[in-house]
């Protein structure tokens, strides 16, 4: 890793690209720069790179190569899945990424029936309520594999079973690809979204998995690339980088995730020692790299900025930090009241974080909270 003088604890937002990935992208961009639709040999070489990447990706995700569609990332994959499924009723969980929530709201405004399925206070979907909502009118259910803010892992297997053969099941796997084992066929999902920059791949590259024989409308029409599902000249260097990054992530997955989990639990233990603090999300059913805390009486934007002064990069779901000045819909869905939501801090680990860095952060965080609490009009 190229050293930067910062402690980057925001890997759920994005990651630093792996140098090996960058090398692979450069190789493809310089050597096989042809258009995969061209008939000449440079075009055909590019096509070969494309199909190689597709096969590699399919193998890693447990599906067929013909079921992998390359996109510009998680938001496009999610939009295509949600908008592309015909039918009357959509069910999406209340804690989905904005690229699902906002798309669902858009469809609702356009006279589709949309239900936002509730979660419990740990952020796990309420299966019984979901089951009640699934009717003969339901076209699609979308529940993410794990939540980007609070890290809660959803029971996707059970959800896929609830959906059965009649209802399409889409899962946003942006936070879990490369981190959890994914076997799309075994899971029996119909649609799934993945994004490359969350696992040290390039930004602007993702995948939509579409199970064979699933009927879905395209979002982008044109030259008919990606089996008519996604027109536009393929970003083959990016696609090659994507598949390389996924390969690297899975190569070392188990040991790396165990390592991060240990660090995660250490952070949780340490932050629980701060007075009036609480962990958001599930204790056990959570991503190995996610910590989400609330500290009563401090505000998140101020907290993040002060941590930044100390070189620590993290994020928050506070209302003050959002463009809408509303608290994060995820923190709202798990029932946090606004003072607790104000003081939320997300730490998301990555492969480049050392234990030493985390130790430094764990020294600074309580100091910064103490400082802000001294200034605060809300006393603990």
């Amino acid at each position, binding site marked *: 890793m190229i050293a930067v003088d910062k402690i980057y604890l925001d890997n759920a937002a994005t990651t630093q690209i792996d140098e090996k990935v960058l090398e692979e992208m450069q190789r493809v961009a310089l050597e096989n720069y042809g258009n995969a639709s061209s008939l000449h040999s440079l075009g055909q070489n590019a096509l070969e790179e494309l199909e190689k990447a597709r096969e590699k990706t399919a193998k890693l995700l447990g599906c067929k190569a013909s079921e992998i569609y390359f996109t510009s990332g998680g938001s496009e994959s999610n939009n295509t899945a949600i908008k592309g499924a015909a039918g009357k009723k959509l069910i999406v969980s209340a804690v989905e990424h904005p690229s699902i929530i906002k798309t669902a709201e858009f469809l609702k405004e356009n006279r589709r029936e949309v239900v936002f399925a509730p979660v419990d206070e740990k952020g796990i979907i309420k299966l019984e309520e979901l089951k009640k909502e699934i009717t003969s009118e339901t076209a699609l259910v979308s529940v993410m594999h794990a939540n980007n803010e609070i890290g809660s892992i959803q029971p996707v297997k059970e959800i896929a079973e609830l959906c059965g053969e009649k209802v399409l099941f889409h899962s946003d796997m942006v936070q879990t690809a490369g981190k959890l084992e994914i076997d799309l066929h075994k899971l029996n999902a119909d649609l799934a979204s993945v994004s490359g920059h969350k696992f040290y791949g390039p930004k602007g590259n993702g995948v939509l998995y579409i199970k064979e024989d699933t009927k879905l409308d395209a979002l982008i029409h044109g030259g008919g690339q990606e089996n008519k599902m996604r027109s536009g000249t393929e970003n083959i260097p990016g696609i090659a980088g994507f598949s390389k990054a996924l390969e690297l992530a899975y190569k070392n997955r188990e040991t790396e995730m165990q390592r991060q989990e240990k660090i995660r639990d250490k952070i949780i233990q340490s932050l629980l020692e701060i007075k009036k603090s609480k962990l958001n999300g599930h204790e056990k059913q959570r991503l190995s790299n996610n910590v989400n805390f609330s500290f009563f*009486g*401090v*505000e998140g*934007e*101020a907290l993040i*900025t*002060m941590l930044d*002064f100390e070189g620590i990069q993290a994020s928050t779901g*506070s*209302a*003050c*930090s959002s*463009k809408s*000045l509303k608290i994060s819909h995820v923190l709202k869905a798990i029932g946090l009241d*606004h*003072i607790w939501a*104000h003081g939320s801090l997300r730490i998301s680990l990555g492969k480049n974080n050392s234990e030493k860095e985390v130790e430094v952060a764990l020294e600074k965080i309580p100091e910064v909270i103490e400082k802000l609490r*001294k*200034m*605060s*009009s*809300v006393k603990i």
Partner: protein
Amino acid sequence: MYSEKVMEEFKKPKNMGKIKNPDAIAEVGNPICGDMMKVYLKVKDNKIEDVKVETFGCVSAIATSSKATEMIKGKTLDEALKLTEKEVADALDGLPPIKMHCSVLAVKAIKKAIEDYKKKQLCRNDL
């Protein structure tokens, strides 16, 4: 997003905390994002001898609390009442538009505290 001046002010905010036995207190809340601010005044000879503020809010809320209180310290009550939100924003080289709603709170709280003080004085004179 923020100007350098805002960041400096936030890094080393002035007048944070409480005053024991203050002559006036005012608390204001912001219904938009939910932040809160409390101002304490010590008044002597019609002048603001000391002012302290407690803020539960964002960078902008804290920076404007600091700046606004600095701007009124030592001023007469009437001078302090003339302080405007714009003057505070200008002193900080401007604020992002989305942050205006909380940046006006400091001035509001100060005015409320002064009015509160004046009212108390009137009552006392009535006695």
